[in-house]
């Protein structure tokens, strides 16, 4: 295993050189902050450093997402001793002041208080490197313990050992379903056949969800490493990342990462001088939400319309081009490396009895601290919304939290002390989903919200099965009628009947879940529906 040691040594060497710098200025270069002209801020900081002849003392580099997108553009300044200061809403004009303050007191005007729960209450496993390392630099990933897990797996573990460790960890699929990852891996490993595939589902499409985009933009190698380990465990030589074409920055970073990993023999043939071969290809989607469903995703890779098919057969037996296939989400793969490094037991100690580890959530809607957070499973909604999220921006009253995208539901404020784990959210009529949380305040109209989601489901219905194709359109029309105040009780009855029908008879999970927004708002906010119905006598009178 000398090859990994060599890699590690050269990466360490680079880190030592960096340590020679007394200060490091990190600029967030994830899409959220980039769009706010971060490149010009980077240049302005570099100009200042060069202008004052500080190149050997101050390092300026671009890194991935720092999480608190609401305060972007973000710049962090760290010293050799590890102390760090975070600056918010930085502009080009602030560069001289920031550089001048390096050896004195921080610029208080820009300083972001990092002792707040937003920072202290988080637990970073998936996002441990985000905002710290340069995503385009493989050495930085290696120096941060990257690819050590792959090396361990290839040199010291059998595929069965790997699957055992993942099973012990209790990791469950982070794409929404929550199926046991260890069980899925062992099923594909046991499937007959020499040719198998690994797929990373990066077709994130839930409104309100932007976790996977950020992970891929901030730490792409972590996902590649997780996929390679999965390939070894199940006996596959080829992996595909199916990613939305709407994420050009993430695609670019992935391409760079794959090229770098191939060059260092961390992907390709005879990885790290072992018998193991594994290649990863990127496959762009083209704007069909339904392709996040695994059978639709595989149809899309095969060059067909992305339409789901009935299961069984499951992809584990009959997947891509009919071969046994493992499909996991970005965040699931991102959890593999730390599980191998620290052991399954370590991971299983975090979280609750049935939901282990952490979860990344995207906070959006009426919340002060919009952005990305990672918290241990079992944390309460109150802690997420108030302590970490800072509550609603204008101090309006919180009304509900929508989780799980169009397949999820709205949780009313009275359940704010519920823990966040797979089972609790399902009990409340919502869904863990991929991790989007949309905060809804008192000004929102819940029937309108249900209508938004129904419009989404109607537009994105692939049209293959009638309950979903026709059901969502009818439900949308009925919701619209209610919003316009032209519906009667009979319309509401019909809506509920359609919810039932669509849920029970649609072909795929997306169709079955399409009425969830209506069902959950009816469960908790029925009065908002009934208050708009025209009285029965008026309906009679019209006839």
């Amino acid at each position, binding site marked *: 295993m000398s090859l990994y040691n060599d890699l590690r040594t050269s990466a360490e060497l680079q880190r030592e050189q960096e340590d020679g710098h007394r200060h490091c200025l990190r600029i967030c270069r994830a*899409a*959220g902050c980039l*769009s*706010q002209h971060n490149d010009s801020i980077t240049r302005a900081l570099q100009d200042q450093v060069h202008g004052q002849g500080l190149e050997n003392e101050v390092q300026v580099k671009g890194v991935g997402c720092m999480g608190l*997108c*609401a305060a972007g553009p973000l710049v962090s300044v760290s010293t050799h001793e590890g102390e760090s200061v975070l600056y918010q809403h930085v502009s080009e004009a602030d560069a001289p002041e920031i550089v001048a303050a390096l050896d004195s007191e921080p610029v208080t005007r820009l300083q972001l208080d990092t002792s707040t729960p937003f920072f202290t209450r988080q637990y970073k496993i998936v996002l441990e490197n985000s905002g710290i390392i340069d995503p385009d630099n493989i050495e930085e990933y290696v120096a941060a313990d990257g690819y050590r897990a792959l090396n361990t797996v290839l040199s010291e573990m059998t595929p069965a050992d790997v699957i055992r460790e993942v099973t012990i960890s209790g990791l469950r699929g982070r794409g929404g379903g929550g199926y046991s990852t260890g069980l899925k891996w062992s099923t594909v490993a046991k499937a007959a056949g020499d040719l198998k595939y690994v797929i990373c589902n990066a077709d*994130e*499409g*839930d*409104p*309100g*969800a*932007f976790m996977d*985009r950020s992970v891929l933009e901030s730490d792409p190698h972590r996902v590649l490493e997780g996929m390679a380990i999965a390939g070894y465990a199940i006996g596959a030589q080829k992996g595909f990342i199916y990613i939305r*074409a*709407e*994420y*050009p920055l993430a695609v670019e970073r992935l391409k760079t990462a794959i090229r770098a990993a191939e060059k260092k023999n961390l992907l390709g043939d005879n990885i790290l001088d072992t018998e193991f071969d594994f290649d990863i*290809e990127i*496959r*762009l*989607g*083209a*704007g*069909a*939400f339904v392709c996040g469903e695994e059978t639709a995703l595989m149809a*899309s*890779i*095969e*060059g*067909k*319309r*992305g339409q789901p098919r009935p299961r069984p057969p499951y992809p584990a037996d009959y997947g891509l*081009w009919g071969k046994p296939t493992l499909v996991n989400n970005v965040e699931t793969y991102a959890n593999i490396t730390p599980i191998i490094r620290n052991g399954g037991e370590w991971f299983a100690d975090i979280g609750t009895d049935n939901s282990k580890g952490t979860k990344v959530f*995207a*906070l*959006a*809607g*009426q919340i002060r601290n*919009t*952005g990305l957070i990672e918290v241990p499973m079992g944390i309460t909604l109150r802690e997420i919304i108030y302590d970490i999220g800072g509550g609603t921006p204008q101090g309006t009253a919180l009304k509900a939290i*929508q989780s799980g995208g169009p397949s999820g539901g709205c949780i009313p404020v009275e359940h704010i002390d519920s823990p966040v784990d797979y089972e609790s959210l399902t009990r409340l009529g919502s869904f863990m989903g991929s991790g*989007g949380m*949309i905060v*809804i305040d008192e000004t*929102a109209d819940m029937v309108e*919200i249900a209508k*938004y*989601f129904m419009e*989404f489901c109607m*537009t*994105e219905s*692939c049209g293959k099965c009638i309950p979903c194709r026709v059901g969502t359109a009818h439900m949308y029309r009925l919701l619209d009628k209610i919003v316009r105040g032209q519906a009667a009780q009979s319309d509401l009855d019909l809506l509920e009947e359609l919810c039932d029908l669509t849920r029970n008879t649609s072909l795929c999970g997306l169709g079955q879940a399409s009425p969830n927004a209506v069902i959950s708002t009816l469960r908790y906010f029925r009065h908002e529906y009934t208050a708009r119905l025209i009285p029965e006598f008026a309906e009679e009178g019209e006839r």
Partner: protein
Amino acid sequence: MSIKDKKYEARIQKHFGKYPDKRSAVMALLYIAQEEYGWVSPEAIQEVADLCEMDPTQVKSIAGFYTMYSEKPKGKYWLQVCTDLPCALKGADEFHKELKAYLGVEEGGTTDDGLFTVEHVMCLAACDKAPMLQCNFHYMENLDMEKMKAFVEEKRAELEQQTSKK
């Protein structure tokens, strides 16, 4: 104009090399065709069908299924406004309406000067920066009509300059 030109050959072969059959590369080739023609024109469909050894009807059905293939010519700047719930909560619907009114186009329409096409799009995963849109795959975030008017006028002025030079 053709994607059978030499300049695309290496790229197309690379896509074919990824898969066990040619059909699997059809989506990638449709992107190349859209790059060449600006939209997936009937010629583009035919060429992709030839290369992937498929029936043109099958290719057309795939182009029609996925929203990122354009079945009609688009403006130079393709503005896709995200109007999903998290964005709508931050005023994206209103913004989308005002933008169309300002440009004088209907949903999916293109301005007479051929510069702008406006349409709404499903989640672009930048919910924290709404209202936002994607302009030819580049994100423009934290928008308001003032910023958009400035952008539109800048592009119009550029076009005017180019035409007056000619």
